[in-house]
């Protein structure tokens, strides 16, 4: 998905920069100050309308794909509780006692089954980001003290998935990790 996003960005950026360069060149080549755009107001309003329709269409298509609605109609086959803390993740099949968090930093999960991660923090804000075997970010949620974020995900490929913290949480933030093995 990230590659598609990058390509889209590069195309849009290329088009925008072409417009700016072209407009600048027309100014450099202009012989009098009387040039400009005819019916500028009409063209401006058309431009705004087209942009509005494009953005509206994009919003309509993308909002339904937001992570809040992922697998919303299915019942998860497993619930994994995640307690985040400086600078570790504790994962467990059972609820985690905040005063005495018990769990593991590496778990095994089945392929093609819906997993619900219930993610919280025992101290500061953290990120719970799942990277696939090729180290590409595939899903994430925040871990916030006092709240539980529910992230649903179905792993379709076997392999080792790394969990990294993506919310800055202090001096060892970059070393905070866990893993999931999908069999």
């Amino acid at each position: 998905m990230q590659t598609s996003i990058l390509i889209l960005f590069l195309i849009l950026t290329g088009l925008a920069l072409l417009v700016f360069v072209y407009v600048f060149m027309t100014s450099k080549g202009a012989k009098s100050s009387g040039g400009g755009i005819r019916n500028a107001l009409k063209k401006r309003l058309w431009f705004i309308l087209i942009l509005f329709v494009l953005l509206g269409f994009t919003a309509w298509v993308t909002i339904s794909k937001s992570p809040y609605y992922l697998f919303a109609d299915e019942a998860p086959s497993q619930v994994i509780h995640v307690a985040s803390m400086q600078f570790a993740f504790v994962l467990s099949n059972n609820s985690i006692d905040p005063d005495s968090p018990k769990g593991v930093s590496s778990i095994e999960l089945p392929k093609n089954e819906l997993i619900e991660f219930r993610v919280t923090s025992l101290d500061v804000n953290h990120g719970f980001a799942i990277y696939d075997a090729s180290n590409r970010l595939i899903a994430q949620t925040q871990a916030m003290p006092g709240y539980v974020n529910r992230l649903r995900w179905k792993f379709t490929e076997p392999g080792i998935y790394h969990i990294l913290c993506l919310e800055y949480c202090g001096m060892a933030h970059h070393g905070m990790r866990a893993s999931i093995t999908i069999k």
Partner: protein
Amino acid sequence: METVKIKKITALWIVVVLLLFVVSIILGILMRLNQGEIIHHSPVTFYGNMTTHGLTMIGIWFVAGMAGVNYLMQRYVTVSLWPNMTGLIFTAIGVILLWVSTFIGDFHAGWTFLYPLPFKVMWASWATPMFLCSLTVMGVGWLIWSLGMVMQLLKRYSISQVFAWQHFGKNPKVETPPFVLISMITLVGVIASLLAAVVLLILYFMEFFSNSSFVNDALLMKNLTYFFGHTIANEMLYLGLAVLYELFSEVSGRPKWKTTWYIAVSWNLSLVFILTAFFHHLYMDFVQPEGLQIVGQLASYLASLPAAGVTVFSVIIAVYRTKIKWSLTNLLFFIGVAGWVVGGLGALIDATISNNFVLHNTLWVPAHFHTYNVMGNVLFSLAFFHWFAMQFANNNITERFAKTKLGLLILGGAGFLAVFYLGGAESIPRRYSNYPAEFPSAQVLAYVGAIFATVYLIAILFFFLNISKRCVKIMFSSSS
């Protein structure tokens, strides 16, 4: 006499901003070199530099916009010196407190200082209250400065006039200059964000002094943090746009821009969109009500309509097939608008919730916000600085090396930003002092980023020397 003093204080602001900008760029380069494993700082040093870099950058480009708007506002209203002086003194004290807390106290909670990280002390215990005090001092100074300017505008224009509401109808009897409209809209946003900061800081201090008998709500604190942080970071760009509306046509030798119905409508709508777009920072907090998440995406999208359809389109119209007098000032404005558009595209992509799911807190985030700062807002302010210095200089001297300076600025900026975008597409996390082995390209990208940032720094040093020399003369000149 007041005018002379405002000229001198503006010159002082420019020198201070450029000096702090150079220091902050160097901190940024050190961070990228550390990530590239070229130098080896401890994580505490890295994250301390990251905290200083972020807050100093936001602070200086905000005050740069304020100083520019304050100077040009004299064309329309009588401007008092004291709010500006208060802003300067409080900013100086705030920056000193901030730097002491980070460089000596090792405070390193990041510029977002997300609650409750500042209370999980991993630094000198005095550094947390000193950091919070630094924000308080700067916030109070900026609030006084902003309110002072609003008061001056309201002495000359009524509420409806200052927001250009009479332009919604045909043939308005009073014309509100675009500069006045945009300044007012922006100042309202600034004041709103600073009031949010006041509430945030009060809540921090209440918990700090309660010995943990009072505990804040993390979600509320996060909303307040981003309402403040996102809004002020956006408004500093809009301050730059106010200056652009005032100066672009003037330095191009073209008729001055006037407020029309669509300019009035779009800027009034902008205020609504800007104040509600901050929700996009909380997309990955699934406990936030879904309605607010959707408001975040829609407001972020809608904010681009007046920006592209009115401001960018107006600049395009002003230039297209029109013979205008190109100078370093309007070139900086023009390139800055292009940079702003590119950064906006990156931001729109990230403001789409389904994309944010795989981009949030990767290098895509610093990629897009650095774009509209490094190649947008900074250029708007540089354009003002250059124009300001030019008024008191020989044109031939100050326009010398213009192509070299611009070339280095574009090359350095584009290269520096490109590797950020590539890093984002590679899922490389942001705010990592050192990259794990899973990201073999991250170190190379960081190293390349540092090289291009150095090229950008060289261009800024050219501007700094050229503009500061003139500004120092203005500061110490005895006549007007």
